[in-house]
Each structure stands twice: as C-alpha cells, then as structure tokens.
C-alpha cells in the first residue's frame, strides 16, 4: 500500500491503471495468481516497474515517472518482455 501511494505522487490514476495493465501484460508470469500479486500489490508493482525500467534502459527507480509511462504508451508487440 505505501508503495502505491508513492507511485501516485508521481502520476495520476489513469497512468497508474495504464501501468498496471502494461505490467500485467508484459511483465507478469501468466497463470500466476494475480490476486496473490495484488495482495502484495505495492512492492510487487514497484518491482515490476523496476524490471521494465531496467529492460528499457531507464533509471530503475520503481517510480512511475514521465519517461516510464511514456514508454508504456508506445505501440508495441504483444509478446511479454519477461518471456514465459
């Protein structure tokens, strides 16, 4: 929970949902219990953001900063980056 509020400091709800959906699609092992992931939403989503930032060579802060959300909005391939 704290991490989620930290995230929100740097973005708005809409970006948060875009990020959540993006990370679900491209950085989540399919078949894992999402609910499990959601229970530890804050730390897990921060970790996933860091993973995505590392993949795209961004500063791995775990925060949903402008650069990170703009990469998430780019048209892309549907295959997950964390291959499963």
């Amino acid at each position, binding site marked *: 929970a704290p991490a989620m509020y930290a995230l929100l400091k740097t973005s708005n709800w809409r970006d948060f949902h875009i990020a959540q959906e993006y990370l679900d*699609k491209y950085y989540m092992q399919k078949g894992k219990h999402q609910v499990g992931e959601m229970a530890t939403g804050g730390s897990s989503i921060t970790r996933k953001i860091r993973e995505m930032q590392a*993949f*795209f060579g961004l500063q791995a802060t775990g925060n949903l900063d402008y650069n990170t959300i703009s990469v998430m909005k780019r*048209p*892309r*391939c*549907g*295959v997950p*980056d964390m*291959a499963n």
Partner: protein
Amino acid sequence: YRLFPGEPKWKKNTLTYRVSKYTSSLSHAEVDKAVEMGLKAWSNAAPLNFVRANTGEADIMISFETGDHGDSYPFDGPRGTLAHAFAPGEGLGGDTHFDNAEKWTMGTNGFNLFTVAAHEFGHALGLGHSTDPSALMYPTYKYQSPFGFHLPKDDIKGIQKLYGPRKSGAEGPKVPQNPPTNPSGPSNPDHCDATSSFDAVTMLGKELLFFRDRFFWRRQAQLTTNVWPNTITGSFPQLMGNVDAAYEVAERGVAYFFKGPHYWVTRGFQMQGSPRTISDFGFSRKVQHIDAAVHLNDEKKTLFFVGDEYYSYDEAKMRMEKDYPKGVDEEFTGIKGKIDAAVEVNGFIYFFSGPKAYKYDREKEDVVNIVKASSWIGC
C-alpha cells in the same frame, strides 16, 4: 538479443507459412508481399527456407484478428498491442496474429506491416525481445523500410545462435566491404554516399539498374543484397558515363538510354545500332537533353521529365501526346526539387530527386513513402 526459456527452435530448416485471414486495410497482394519480405529478412541471415501454403495447417499460421481471438492474449483495439507471435512448436507454436483494429500500411501512414511482420517472425523462429534499441526485436514499434532493409547485428547474432549462419556457397548475398577493383583505375564511388542521387534508373528484364557518374548498380527487383558498383563502360561501352535517363519497354524487350541530345536502344545489354537524336520522340529543338524518363506499363506511355516540365509519349502510336509539356507539380505533388530519375515498380512510380526517393501512388495521387535514394542499392 534474448531467446525464449528452453530455447525452443524449429527442428527443420524449411518451414511452411499461410495467411489464413487477411485485413481490410491492405490488399491480399500487399499482405502477401509484406509477409514474404518479413520472412526473407530472416532467411537472408540464417539457413531457413519458407514455403507458402494456400490450404491446410502450416507451421506458421498468419492471421489478422480482433479483440479476444481465443489464444488468451486478446488484442486491445487501435495502438497499444499491434501483434504477437508464439515461439516455435506444434499447434499454436509459430503462429502470428496481427491486430486487425490497427491501420496497416505498406508505407508510413499507419503501422508498416513489413516492420511488424519481420519482428513477429523473429518470435515465431524463437527470438524473445531484445533490450538493444537498434534491434528489430526491440518491443516498441519503429518504422523500417523494406527497401534496403538489413537485419541489425543483434538480431543476426540471435537467429544464428539458434540456426547457425547461412552455409557457404548458399551464402546469403552480401554487399562486399570493398567493391571489386575497378579496372579503369580511379576509386569506386562511395557506395553508400547518402548525399547523392542517381542520374538514371530503369528496369532491365528482372533487374533494376541505377546509374551514377561512370558507374551503375544492378539488383534483383525484390532484393537489395548482392549489390555493388559496375563501370558503365564495362557493360555499355558507347555510353561511357553520366547517363541522363533510361527506361525499358518490357513488352517489346527494348530499353532506351539517353545522354544529351542522343539516345541508344538496347536489347538487354546488347546495343542495337548507333545513337540517334531525341528529336525522334518529337522534342522541339530547344530540348537538348532530358532529366528522367519512366515507362508506364499499363498505359503504354512514357513520361519524359525536362526541368520542371514533363511530356507524355505514346509508345503504341510512337508519338508525343498533345497538350504537353505540363508542369511537373501540376500532376506530381509532394516531390521536392528537380527529378533526376524515375522508374515504375509494382504499379508505383519512384521518383529520385537529390538524395531522396519518393514513392508515388497514382491512385492516391500522392507520395506515400520517402526513403534515402541510396537505400535502393542496399545502404
């Protein structure tokens, strides 16, 4: 580059593919062409062959789908996710799906199908996403022109990790680092000089010929590999160099080469007789040279470009059409600068002006793509 966990790959080198569902935003022929070139991007770098199937199950089933299409990876409408493909394997393995909600294009006004298809086929062959922003397998969309496309190094390393390099002998055509020594001595042109244009461009049989100064490049119409400069004197002794324009009337198996007030007729590379004067075409005496010429196969007309005007010559009646010359910009909007060369390929007119090549769609009456002129010779 990255491979999928377990490094799945095809156990055979010849794979079948089939487009089972097309999109409404491109013709079947355009989709087929983009798919063929997307696959060729990989078979140029690895010992892979792709055979098209028209019915039944193929290794790589290709389709345009909308929303939830039954593979637990639903599409999301325009933009966002453009396409996906599955790693090598039975059944769904290798299959490639494109989001039909996208605006697919052969040019740049939408998502270029060749660009996305070439990426997705990397997955279908066993590559995951690369973290190298210059790689084709980078996750986000970045337009690539099919003309002159070369697989980036990172992708070559990845595909050759799975399937090895092309065997010697069947060597995927390569552009030699140093063009063959030129018997006439002086140094060869800078093969990839991105600042200069071409003097003339023409089809000749199944090949495309590009003329610049005392050299010309020849390449298969659909291939940009295996291209290096030849001396004009080596193949067209009488032309020497600095050809102004050229065109071919494939139907009659003849080609015309223009230089100053003269022109030569050839059959293939064989000169037919001595040079004649361009007044044969009906040019007035004030026209002492032409800049470019392009033959329109369907209309059986040849367009001649002289400065900022152009003429239309009726090949069937063997005479210049009335009401010409007209202003180039009256008809061909979007072309910047004088036209140096022109050629018709697959129904499109390609204009070369300075370092740029403009793809002109006569139905849309507009330029639909602009690339570096040198990309046509593999740069």
